[in-house]
């Protein structure tokens, strides 16, 4: 039977194709936008965006590897956010609260490191626990009060943000004259995540064990989802919660557990960037975009933990590309616009997938009952 399914009709291939098409269409649309704004320099600018930091290859010295390192460092949190989202998604929950869980992760990372002076393992653990707790809250709302996790998540995002501004705005953490949190390297070097192959990456002092840790997390998620009873349960709940109930699975526990794990990953994402010292926290008036970009990344990655790594690298790569566009012809806002177009087109993966699969649903049995959806559609039409 398998041979009958053409190569392009295989689900994995379709997901992959859809992702690639999304990326390519995004780039083409971005190019068109550039062209409309300034036709003369569109090609050069798109090239600069795509070549990105590889332009440093012409320079002697470690610049290329150093930038490559920074690229990896910045990709890590967005990949982890995507992992958090896809994990919940597989269990049937749309955890838009990742942004908030990430935010409380920031609180824990920075407060523990700067105000409490803890060392990195404790700070990392605190961030994970904080994110998990935030996920636990929206899980409880969902499980016990039937509050949709999207609504609970959005509320908690803002609550998290304001708590973050209040806590980190205190003088223990915030350098008032700079309006950003103190430099971690200067104030508590113990809290910095241990370096990882820094010499290989041109002495990039920000590259840390967060990079291999992310890969490990992705692999663990892959294993949990596909090999364990927990993953079996969560996915069953995600696919069909009625059947999960029928099978005696504890839906409430699974909802909470899913959001706790998802939140823990998001909290960890925050510490992978704020415990490297690459960026200090500033009072923010909106929820970090990381959690939302993570959604695009998760879908672009075909909701696969390993796919999310590649998608995250792609999105971060494109994001970094904006600064290489010639600002004499395109303002930075335009560059951001192009990047947004490319990134948000990634959310259309499922759309492209459905187009790809439309001309031939894989029907194994000619006498198969139509899916529920098809039947319902038919009932409506008749």
């Amino acid at each position, binding site marked *: 039977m398998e041979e009958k399914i053409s190569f392009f009709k*295989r*689900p*994995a*291939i379709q*997901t*992959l194709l859809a*992702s*690639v098409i999304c*990326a390519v269409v995004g780039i083409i649309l971005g190019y068109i936008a550039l062209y409309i704004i300034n036709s003369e320099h569109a090609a*050069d600018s798109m*090239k*600069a965006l*795509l*070549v*990105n*930091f*590889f*332009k*440093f*290859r*012409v*320079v002697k010295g470690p*610049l290329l590897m150093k*930038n490559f390192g*920074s690229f990896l460092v910045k990709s890590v949190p967005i990949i982890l956010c995507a992992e958090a989202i896809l994990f919940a998604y597989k269990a049937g929950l749309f955890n838009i609260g990742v942004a908030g869980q990430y935010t409380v992760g920031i609180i824990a990372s920075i407060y523990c490191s700067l105000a409490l002076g803890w060392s990195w393992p404790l700070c990392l653990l605190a961030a994970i626990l904080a994110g998990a707790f935030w996920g636990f809250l929206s899980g409880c709302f969902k499980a016990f009060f039937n509050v949709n996790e999207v609504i609970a998540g959005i509320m908690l995002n803002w609550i998290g943000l304001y708590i973050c501004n209040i806590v980190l705005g205190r003088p223990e953490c915030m350098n*008032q*004259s*700079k*309006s*950003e949190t103190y*430099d971690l390297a200067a104030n508590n070097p113990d809290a910095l995540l241990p370096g990882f192959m820094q010499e290989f990456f041109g002495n990039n002092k*920000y590259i840390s064990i967060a990079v291999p840790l992310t890969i490990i997390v992705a692999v663990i998620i892959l294993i949990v989802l596909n090999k364990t009873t927990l993953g079996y349960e969560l996915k069953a709940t995600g696919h069909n919660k009625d059947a999960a109930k029928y099978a005696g699975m504890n839906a409430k526990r699974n909802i909470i557990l899913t959001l706790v794990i998802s939140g823990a990953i998001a909290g960890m994402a925050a510490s992978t960037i704020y415990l490297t010292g*690459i*960026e*200090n926290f*500033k*009072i923010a*008036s909106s929820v970090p975009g990381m959690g939302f970009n993570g959604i695009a990344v998760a879908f672009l990655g*075909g909701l*696969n933990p*390993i*796919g999310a790594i*590649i*998608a995250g*690298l*792609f999105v971060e*790569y494109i*994001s*970094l590309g*904006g*600064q*290489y566009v*010639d*600002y*004499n012809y395109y*303002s*930075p*806002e335009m560059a951001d616009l192009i990047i947004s177009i490319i990134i948000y087109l990634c959310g259309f993966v499922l759309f492209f997938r459905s187009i790809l699969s439309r001309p031939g649903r894989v029907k194994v049995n000619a006498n198969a009952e139509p899916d529920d959806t098809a039947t319902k559609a038919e009932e409506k039409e008749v």
Partner: protein
Amino acid sequence: MKKKLLSVLLVAAMVATMFVGCGSSASDSATDDAAKAETGDTQEASSDYRIAMITDSGDITDMSFNQTTYEASKAFAEANGADFQYYKPTEDSNEARIASFENAVTDGYNVIVVPGYLFAAMIAEVAEDYPDVTIIALDCSEFDFTDNGMEKLPENVCSFTYHEELAGYMAGYAAVKEGYKKLGFLGGMAVPAVIRYGFGFVQGCNDAAVELGNASDVEVNYVYGGQFYGDDAITAQMDTWYSKGTEVVFACGGGIYTSACEAASKVNGKVIGVDSDQSGTIADQYGKDDLCITSAMKGLAATVNTTLTDLFAGDWSKHAGKIENLGIVSDTDLEANYVQLPTDTWSMENFTTDDYKELVGKLNSGEVKVSDSTDAMPKTEIKVNEFDNIH
């Protein structure tokens, strides 16, 4: 198996994208070189300097700090036939600023103008590694450098700070002398330069009120917005101020003036501009010629211009490795001062340009002293109402 295939293909796709990019850019950089050579030919008379500017957390359209620096650098570059480009870091972080610097240097720029104290950390990191690149920093104080472990500036760097307290003092003094009794100060973020402006402003108001003998009538509302741009919350605060009788607000911090102007234009209030002469832009933007009564200017443009001129003329040694603190240098040539009020667009009536000249003279001679401390609100006889930061 399928999953594996998927990953492999995705990687392949990405690598392919990069290679396509790389491949086409090899020839690209060649053209760049050619272009460079060409520019060199035609501009042989001038120099090999290529000027770049990196923005701080703001943008070149902030009607203030970044914009002034950008315009001055660009004007100089055009006048002297040098290449000019500006860079905006991807984030407001040291790492991103360094990346922008490296990007600019890789693009062949060897004079980098950086406005803002935020760049001190970047300079501390890159200055030694790029001895051939000249870095002109604005607003980075000695303290900013030592804070980042840099005791002495290398020869390829110079920095300028300003006596903002003098500019603020003059603006406050002028406003009170002009007859305003209820004043306001709206700072951006509480960074040293902004604090100096604010404290200077308060001192100026106080001294003028004492001289006029109406210190008990004069009040100053004092707040920091917590950001360098206006928004609804800040506008709301300004609305409250103006509705409670505030007559003029010193809007001091990048784009934050929009909130003050918006609120002021509703009730016929006034504002005082900052950094550059903002009366023109504000008049254009809000359609009211007299909205902005004056501006507390600091000579960013002049500094950029002078320094670049010296550099191009081979006089870099005047500045090399120095941190210069610029303020009032002359009581006769008002335009030469690095902190001033705009005399070209003077609109005040009770406080005239002659009064202004007299004030400059006193400040220059040291007859009037203005504290540049940023530690605590100056002690005053007038009433200062301090508000909590808006953000």
